[in-house]
């Protein structure tokens, strides 16, 4: 009478087989590997590259235990970490003959040791979080105000050239906090300018103003429209993420995670990175480039410079210092920004043999550069490298002649290393807005391994203790409960592997806790069956009634636990989210395994026997008194 229909048995069997299949990769462990991925969007990872990697390895007599290629990367599996380092060097040399102009990122990584047929059905080992494998986690806050002021600055430059082209005479354009102020002598010019600007710059909201008396200059105030602001901010965030991608690619990190979080934050996770200081340095550096004109007249005047040092600046200028500390007054107007840069390479100056950075500008940048240099022959031009909000004049050469073709060289008191770093930062693109690290977590690799073993042992011994108790207390039914609990663990790990949800230490704790809580359902069922037997029911009827009566209670109690899990999932971040994901999944698998799977086992054992004398569920003690009567 306790028999499952075929489909139900089949469901249980399929679930268990799938569970086993997707849990399997976790047992194979990981092997050291070298991962090759493309740094440039134009260069694809293809079979030709695979052949090159193979040839390079063959030439160096390095035996790989498996080559694996997908759309993004090639992974070369090797025997041990020594071979891994050797293979990395060999591949690096073969693919990137000029280290400064690397087309591929070659990184150390770990890949699953599981056989290829498992990988081909997407059975992958669980994705370990940083606290288990070691690495760095950063939460970066994008300074959106910075993005807007930057945009206003460049718009200011555009307005200047626009008004000059249209022959509209103004008496100054300046940015005042979040608005651009254009001054005019008469209302007629202002009207003309307003029309032109409104035509050419649809993102600006224009209004008239005049301070104080009637003689004061007329002003046109331009602010960014709200929708334009939003667009700029979205763009800034995307641009920053792209920039971070490029920079991290240059670092050579396998499987980095760079994601938007909320409206203005970016999460960066670099698994396995050992040199965190370097990573932080590269990420935290908000280098951008500006080209400005030097205010030669004032810079040469010691009296003005002395005043400037005390903070009294001539209007329209800003004080910067050159490498070596000499102060220099630069015009506020930005000629060019790093956005116009298409490439930056370290190298040497053709004449002086000093280390230098060679820049290539895009066509618009090249045109602007040509115009400016033509108009300013004999004047000085400053190349300003801005890092962490502080600008430094890298070099301020005198313009000898018009420079066309968009090729520019920065040199001046740089070491080779500095030239390399500067080129890397510039090449990796500038950030559209400055960023601050607001959260950082660094976990050493040894701590990660320690955490795995601690989590594993907690679960193992807890499970063993529960299993021993259940079998001692409920005998065969205890055994079934333990089997159901094992099935629960199997399904949970399979699900985590399949979804590739990040497993963290709190996640492992959640696995342990879920198992500890899941046994509740089996205890409920077993107690109910005992109670039915105590009440004088036949064994088969007791099994039926026990499972059916317990079901409502099991559902109720799991729903309340699930509510707590979902609340954690919604509001939790970081470690709590890792806990919540596993907890919620665990509740779902535990309902299935403790009710459906354990029933299948019980049916298998007892279901076919018609004349069943008793159940092996431990001693059922009968008090011989019914409830109610006893309380009197």
């Amino acid at each position, binding site marked *: 009478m306790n028999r499952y229909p075929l489909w139900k048995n089949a469901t249980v069997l399929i679930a268990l087989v799938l569970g086993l299949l997707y849990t399997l990769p976790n047992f194979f462990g990981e092997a050291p590997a070298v991962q090759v991925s493309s740094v440039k969007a134009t260069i694809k990872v293809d079979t030709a590259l695979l052949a090159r990697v193979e040839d390079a390895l063959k030439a160096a007599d390095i035996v790989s235990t498996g080559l694996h290629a997908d759309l993004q990367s090639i992974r070369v599996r090797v025997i041990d970490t020594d071979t891994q380092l050797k293979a990395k060097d060999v591949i690096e040399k073969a693919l990137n003959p000029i280290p400064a102009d690397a087309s591929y990122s070659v990184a150390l990584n770990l890949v699953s040791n599981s056989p290829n047929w498992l990988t081909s059905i997407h059975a992958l080992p669980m994705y370990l979080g940083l606290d288990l494998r070691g690495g760095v986690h950063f939460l970066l806050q994008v300074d959106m105000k910075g993005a807007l002021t930057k945009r206003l600055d460049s718009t200011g430059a555009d307005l200047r050239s626009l008004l000059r082209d249209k022959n509209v005479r103004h008496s100054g354009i300046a940015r005042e906090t979040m608005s651009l102020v254009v001054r005019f002598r008469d209302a007629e010019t202002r009207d003309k300018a307003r029309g032109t600007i409104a035509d050419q710059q649809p993102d600006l909201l224009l209004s008239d103003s005049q301070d104080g008396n009637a003689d004061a200059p007329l002003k046109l105030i331009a602010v960014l429209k709200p929708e334009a602001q939003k667009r700029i901010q979205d763009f800034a965030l995307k641009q920053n993420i792209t920039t971070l991608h490029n920079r991290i690619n240059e670092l050579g990190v396998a499987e980095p995670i760079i994601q938007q979080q909320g409206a203005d934050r970016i999460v960066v996770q670099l698994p396995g990175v050992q040199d965190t200081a370097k990573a932080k340095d590269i990420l935290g550096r908000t280098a951008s480039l500006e080209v400005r004109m030097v205010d030669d007249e004032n810079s040469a005047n010691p009296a003005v410079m002395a005043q400037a040092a005390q903070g009294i600046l001539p209007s329209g200028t800003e004080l910067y210092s050159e490498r070596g500390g000499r102060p220099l007054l630069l015009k506020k107007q930005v000629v060019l920004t790093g956005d116009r840069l298409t490439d930056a390479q370290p190298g040497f100056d053709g004449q002086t043999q000093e280390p230098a950075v060679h820049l290539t500008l895009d066509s618009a940048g090249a045109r602007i550069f040509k115009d400016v240099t033509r108009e300013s022959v004999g004047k000085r031009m400053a190349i300003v490298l801005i890092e962490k909000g502080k600008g430094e004049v890298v070099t301020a050469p005198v313009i000898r002649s018009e420079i066309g073709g968009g090729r520019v060289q920065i040199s001046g008191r740089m070491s080779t290393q500095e030239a390399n770093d500067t080129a890397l930062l510039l090449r990796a693109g500038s950030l559209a807005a400055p960023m601050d*690290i607001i959260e950082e977590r660094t976990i*050493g690799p040894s701590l990660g391994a*320690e955490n795995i073993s*601690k989590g594993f042992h907690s679960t193992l011994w807890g499970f063993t203790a529960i299993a021993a108790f259940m079998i001692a207390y409920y005998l065969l039914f205890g055994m079934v409960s333990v089997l159901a609990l094992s099935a629960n663990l199997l399904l949970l790990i399979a699900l985590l592997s399949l979804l590739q949800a990040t497993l963290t230490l709190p996640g492992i*704790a959640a696995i342990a806790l879920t198992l*500890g809580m899941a046994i509740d359902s089996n205890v*409920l069922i077993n107690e109910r069956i005992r109670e039915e037997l105590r009440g004088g029911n036949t064994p088969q009827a007791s099994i039926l009634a026990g499972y059916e009566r317990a079901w409502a209670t099991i559902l109720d109690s799991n729903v309340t636990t699930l509510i707590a899990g979902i609340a*954690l999932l919604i509001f939790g971040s970081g470690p709590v989210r890792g806990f919540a994901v596993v907890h919620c999944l665990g509740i779902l698998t535990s309902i299935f395994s403790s009710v459906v799977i354990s029933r299948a086992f019980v049916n298998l054992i007892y279901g076919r026997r018609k004349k069943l004398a008793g159940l092996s569920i431990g001693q059922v003690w009968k008090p011989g008194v019914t409830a109610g009567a006893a309380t009197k």
Partner: protein
Amino acid sequence: MEFFRIKKDIPFMRHALAFNIVSLITFVLAVAFLVGKGLHLSIEFTGGTLMEISYSQAPDLDKLRAKLSQDGFTDTQVQNFGTSREVLIRVPLSKDADTAKVGERVITSLKTLDAANLPTLKRVEFVGPQVGKELASDGAMALLLVVAGIMIYLAIRFEWRFAVSAIIANLHDVVIILGFFAFFQWEFSLPVLAAILAVLGYSVNESVVVFDRVRETFKKKRGLATPEVLNHAITSTISRTIITHGSTQLMVTSMLIFGGEALHYFALALTIGICFGIYSSVLVASPLVMWLGVSREQFIKIKVEKQEAVV
């Protein structure tokens, strides 16, 4: 084997008042500690830098402290973590512009202390001020959502009286766990918060199981007074209660023993939660239901609705 050979229903309800007075006293004490001592919040909530450093030989903590304060780190906490060779350093947020670099500066400073015994950095956590505030408010929101969700579910599934008493009983557990953390000044971190919410959902289970029995007994057995129904329900589920909680506690104890420092407070919060969960969800929630005036009639009606709804 059968642990619980209970001949007749235990008259729990006779002592209902006593249980609730004990609860009330514990609750008031917990609130007093919370107000008086406050929680020792981890840097996840307060913001700051936390570093775990290991040495090859046990370092002199006083020297480390002296070195750090000499190098301009004020209000740092230096303590051993697990073994005497592992050191945990907490640096609070300062007005300093470059707070994100504190970790590197501390390790550089410590490296100059003793060349023969160099520190190795195992873990750094830095949390900016804005993140901490968000975490605290998110935590409060999560708690609110759990309470509301469970109450709504219980009210639909049972009756508002059950919902109210279950939530009161279990919230009082939460406060008591917090009281323990305040009294011993244990570190209250995000995993502890997760543990508290998980245990809240879990001990509501307990009330659910008892209430389920209450409902069943009301339906099945006529002529029993409410306290007798409650006594019967508790007595017939007590064996399951103890076994389930015992099993969960086996797992949690294993975490306490093998889980190391990282899971220590998490497991501790669970332990307190489980112990008080048994007590409160059985011996506090049931009397509350009784005093709120639960009666047989409420269930006869529900039974009729149920049949229409389910079958």
